[in-house]
């Protein structure tokens, strides 16, 4: 049997990816935390590129205010679970991906169990508090995090390995950081959400394949009004 049961599915991945790399992705597990503007884009891209097992977690359901940017949202899905919708979407794109959905909010009580089997965790959360809790759980589990955050048409991406300083470098010490950023005032625009989710997906694939440059201890900052794209050294 070939790499996919559906002949041709991954043809256009080659030779950017090798056949061996495609198999590696197929044997990989990624947990996506948060299925809003970032998470919806991440699930779409990782399913298409061929990550073999996606666990998608969010306790929320769709609202009308999600429609401006969240790829998974549709008018007829208002009130429906984001996690359940993500699973259906991934199944529809790539039925060879094992798609697990968990409709629950993450906190100290369930984060570790939620992520412990992952090769990479995608932080697509909208709470700075929960991001710090995720880092604690990922440290314990020994799993790298790819983190994205957005506000308006600005965004940032970083990759955090176990025992890195991570979020403290970006948000300050946990006890002094705010729960939300300026996105509460700016909202979030669709193309910025999808742009940042694409960068996160790229980081994830590089980690899984051990290839390319990783944003470890670095923060990619983008601002689209001014076409500013900069990788800042955090230490």
């Amino acid at each position, binding site marked *: 049997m070939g790499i996919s049961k559906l002949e041709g599915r991954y043809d256009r991945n080659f030779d950017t990816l090798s056949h061996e790399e495609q198999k590696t992705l197929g044997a990989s597990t990624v947990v996506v935390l948060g299925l809003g503007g970032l998470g919806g884009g991440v699930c779409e891209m990782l399913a298409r590129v061929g990550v073999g097992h996606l666990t998608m977690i969010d306790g929320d359901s769709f609202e009308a205010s999600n429609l401006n940017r969240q790829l998974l949202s549709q008018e007829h899905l208002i009130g429906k679970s984001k996690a359940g919708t993500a699973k259906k979407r991934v199944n529809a794109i790539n039925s060879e991906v094992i798609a697990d959905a968990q409709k629950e909010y993450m906190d100290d009580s369930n984060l570790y169990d939620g992520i412990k089997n992952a090769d990479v965790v995608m932080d697509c959360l*909208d709470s700075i508090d929960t991001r710090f809790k995720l880092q604690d759980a990922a440290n314990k589990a020994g799993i790298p995090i790819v983190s994205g955050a957005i506000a308006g048409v600005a965004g940032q991406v970083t990759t955090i390995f176990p025992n890195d300083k991570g979020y403290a470098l970006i948000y300050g010490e946990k006890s002094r950081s705010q729960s*939300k*950023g300026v996105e509460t005032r700016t909202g979030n625009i669709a193309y910025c959400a999808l742009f940042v989710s694409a960068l996160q997906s790229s980081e994830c694939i590089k980690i899984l394949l051990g290839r390319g440059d990783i944003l470890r201890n670095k923060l990619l900052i983008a*601002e689209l009004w001014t076409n500013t794209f900069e990788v800042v050294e955090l230490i």
Partner: protein
Amino acid sequence: MIQIDLKLFVTLSKYSPKNSECLKIPEETTVEKLIADLGIPSDLVKLIFINGKMQDLNYLLKHNDRVGLFPPVGGG
């Protein structure tokens, strides 16, 4: 006087002075002093990056520094 290239992002952009890309400031100015002089509430600034490297409020600005200030961003 020295000259810096200053960029203020997202909610900070409304504090941008004229000619911020070639802003003249006194020598011996720290980032903290710059933020105060621009009238930016200090708790609005989360990331300070200068010439592509993260710095803190005590950084002493130098001629031709590229300075970027970002507010906290946490949306998903």
